[in-house]
């Protein structure tokens, strides 16, 4: 059993232990969750450090026979992109445990679901077998359903079931895609599929159809317009920890899947349909940004901003140049950190002020200076101000998409997408202005500022955001081999 398996299954073991702890012992429950998310974080940091950047490719692979009859195997491994996402997920899971430290409503079940959620997300990123990938993809629904439906707020039950049905709907298409690939190539192994030339084989379905089956599956998750309506509901009504996991880590499964499967396995189809998908990306960016401007609920505002930001991922992915792919990968990581921070700090804000309507908040900068500062950092990250990881990511996407020689119409789409930056500045700045600046309101005079614990976990994310923003080599180093080999599919 390798380190990767330990990272993958450590949270499940933690969840099982938590179930065995007596309900009265809340302290032990929390510490168990703490330890069993800390260990995977440490181990994935170790893997991140020891990944051989020179040779690239899949490393730390593990293989075991699982269902020989259909040639499905327990095959896991990571390359630079999935390893970065694994690290992001273990980090956000750990932070989610800290964020939920004060949970008093059924803490045992809460932490158990949270840990199960971590394993299922990690499983998606490390699986190199499509069946295994799909299983983790579907398992994730159950913990998230309960996290939203039990510990959420507002129309939580509606949002939870909407989330599940949307994802199942996408999953149905993906399963059809997986089966179609399986009957074309006779294997579930991603590594083997990479080496297969489908045009030489009798295809179970036309390749373009298979491509779109996968694309729809991932598009629901990313989310891509018009499949995005579950996102604001789910993110808004979820408890803070689940919002962080959803926006920070879970929707990245969609981007990752597109990179790994839609681009990696169907380069010709991807190139052929790129203009169509880039158009969707533009809609995501502009429509998502515009609709964010109209939001009055602070959590919903951040949720909608994800739709816009994920549009940049789609733009970068389907511009199909090395630089744009790098930008998209960076955006996946950077958005995870920034939105994670924004949801964490919004959670604190709502918890402390008992208010989530932007109009009713105001002038908080005086009363809660530290919280304001943290929110501002998250905000400038989301606005892609230089120095933050958001800047590096979005600039790379724009440069890559503008200069791509693979998709001729990409520069036009890129130019339109630039308005996304303006929109982001508009909604972030107006929010900052309305919520934190202006005359202080006496109702919030006795609102607590952030506690030490909250400072620590927000601080960690702030450091990460600036570290990548100021020294991007930190992560570009490990992403570079992946995107370079991917870009070769379209001639570099």
């Amino acid at each position, binding site marked *: 059993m390798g380190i990767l398996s330990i990272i993958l299954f450590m949270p499940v073991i933690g969840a099982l232990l938590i179930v065995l702890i007596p309900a009265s012992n809340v302290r032990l429950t929390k510490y168990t969750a703490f330890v069993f998310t800390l260990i995977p974080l440490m181990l994935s940091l170790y893997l991140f450090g020891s990944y051989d950047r020179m040779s690239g490719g899949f490393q730390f692979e593990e293989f075991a026979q699982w269902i020989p009859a*259909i040639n499905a195997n327990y095959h896991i491994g990571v390359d630079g992109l999935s390893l970065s996402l694994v690290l992001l997920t273990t980090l956000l899971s750990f932070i989610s445990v800290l964020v939920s430290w004060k949970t008093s409503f059924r803490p045992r079940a809460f932490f158990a679901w949270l840990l199960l959620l971590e394993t299922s997300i990690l499983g998606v990123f490390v699986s190199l077998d499509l069946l295994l990938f799909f299983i983790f993809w579907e398992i994730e*629904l*159950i913990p998230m359903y309960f996290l939203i439906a039990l510990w959420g707020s507002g129309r939580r039950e509606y949002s939870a079931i909407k989330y599940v049905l949307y994802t199942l709907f996408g999953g*149905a298409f993906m399963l*059809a895609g997986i089966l179609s690939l399986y009957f074309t190539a006779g294997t579930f192994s991603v590594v083997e599929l990479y080496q297969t030339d489908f045009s030489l084989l009798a295809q179970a379905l036309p390749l373009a159809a298979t491509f779109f089956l996968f694309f729809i599956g991932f598009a629901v998750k990313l989310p891509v317009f018009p499949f995005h309506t579950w996102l604001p509901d789910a993110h808004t009504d979820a408890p803070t920890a689940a919002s962080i996991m959803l926006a920070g880590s879970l929707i990245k499964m969609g981007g990752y899947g597109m990179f790994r499967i839609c681009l990696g396995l169907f380069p010709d189809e991807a190139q052929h349909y790129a203009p169509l998908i880039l158009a969707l990306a533009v809609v995501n960016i502009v429509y998502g940004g515009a609709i964010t401007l109209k939001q009055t609920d602070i959590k919903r505002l951040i949720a909608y901003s994800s739709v816009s930001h994920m549009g940049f991922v789609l733009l970068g992915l389907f511009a199909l140049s090395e630089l744009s792919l790098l930008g998209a990968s960076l955006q996946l990581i950077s958005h995870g950190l920034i939105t994670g921070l924004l949801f964490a700090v919004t959670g604190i804000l709502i918890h402390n002020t008992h208010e989530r309507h932007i109009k009713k908040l105001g002038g908080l900068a005086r009363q809660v200076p530290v919280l304001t500062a943290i929110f501002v950092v998250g905000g400038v990250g989301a606005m892609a101000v230089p120095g933050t990881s958001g800047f590096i990511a979005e600039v790379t996407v724009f440069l890559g998409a503008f200069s791509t020689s693979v998709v001729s119409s990409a520069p036009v789409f890129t130019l339109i997408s630039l308005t996304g930056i303006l929109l982001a500045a508009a909604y972030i700045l107006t929010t900052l202005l309305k919520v934190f600046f202006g005359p202080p309101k006496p109702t919030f005079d006795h609102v607590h500022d952030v506690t030490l614990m909250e400072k620590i976990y927000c601080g960690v994310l702030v450091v990460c955001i600036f570290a990548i923003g100021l020294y991007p080599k930190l992560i570009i180093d490990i992403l570079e081999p992946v995107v370079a080999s991917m870009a070769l599919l379209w001639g570099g």
Partner: protein
Amino acid sequence: MNWITIIPEVIIAGTALVIILLDLISHKRFLPTTVSIGGIVVAAIFTLTADYSTPLTIFGGLLTIDGWSSFLRIILLAVTAGVILVSGDYYAKLKHSWAEYHALLLFALTGMMLMPSAGDLISAFITIEVAIIPLFIMAGLLKDSRSCEASLKMMLIGGIASAIMLYGMAFIFGSTANTNLGEISLAISSMSEVSGGLMLGILLLAAGFCFEVAAIPFHMWAPDTYEGSPTPVTLYLSAASKIAGMAIIVRVFTTAFTNPQSLSAEWGIIFAAISALTMTLGNLLALQQTNIKRLLAYSGIAHTGYLLIGIAVLGVSQGQDGQPTLLFYLAAFALAEIAVFTPVIVITRYLKSDETGDFAGLGQRSPLMSLVLSLGLISLIGLPPTAGFMAKLYIFTGAANSGLLWLVIIAVLNTVISAYYYLKIIKIIWLKEPVYTEKISLPLLPGLVTILTATGLILLGIAPYLLIKLAEGSVIILP
């Protein structure tokens, strides 16, 4: 010695007789339970120890005993044991016919266990009737108006279905001059073309079988019968009789009608169409049900639809593919049904209500039962890591491989629809606040059953090859 090969059935029928005789002497509550479980265990031992690697044809071709028969015998015995163990809650209601209840259960089991082995149209008909007549009585055991309606409805529609089936058999006999399945196959393959009369016969036969497994449009009896019957009988109907029905469809159609290829593909497509219709309507009708037993009836109809995909694959592939996947699906379905019904039996008896709304807050009142119930429902949706996922995966894979990808897409979309009503129950159990907070205790025997089935569901979800290997060794070998 022909009798040796059907000794498990003989033991079961014998046990039923012993129970009736013992009832003359003693009315102890646990006597019928103990005796029937004993009989089932002995029958299981005889099934497991015998060697069926070469098919045995007995009684002049009336029965064919092979791996297929023994695999299904084990599943049916296990399901029946489960039903008997969870029936304890109905003792108060069925007190006056307690021994008869067990005896009827075992008589029906005798018929069901013989159904998968039918080697002749005559024995097919007789075994079906042996299985189904006790079920008519069992559905009406509660003797209230609902229960009587359940029984009568099943009997009337069942009678019509039997008539249709016999009519079909007559046509087949008329066209091939044979009732033996193997002989029929030979007769058909020597024909220059398949006559209209034969085709009509096959269609009528299929229609009769569709009643047995509650496929649309022959499903009308199911919701009312499921609702009115004692709940353990509902479980028995939805699990055991469906399994036996599927098994006999596979036996008859693969043995008799897989030659020539055009005929095989023809009924394959017919079953594919019935399958699409059955799962779609079953799921859509289930959406609005608030009575748990009716809901499970429609869910069972939907699952008949998924199972018929396997039959369609069988037809399209000329009987080559699909048998192991069907066996796996049947086992997974049986496990999930028991996992769902056991808590439902205990809970509905306690609450004196079948309405799903009354399940509010069950998660707090009875965590173990709620957990197993949720697990069973998740398996019925077909989500990992449960047996239901693997079962669906296998059956969808098989269908995609046989060029039935359109059917797979309909089926996966159906899975999404079904998630809505299954999750609705899970939601009520865990998210709604309970009206009363007192705990509902789980009796010992049903507790045992729930733990066993839950373990089975997870185990088969993670390591399906444990069973699929056995299933692959249990297919019907065509001459």
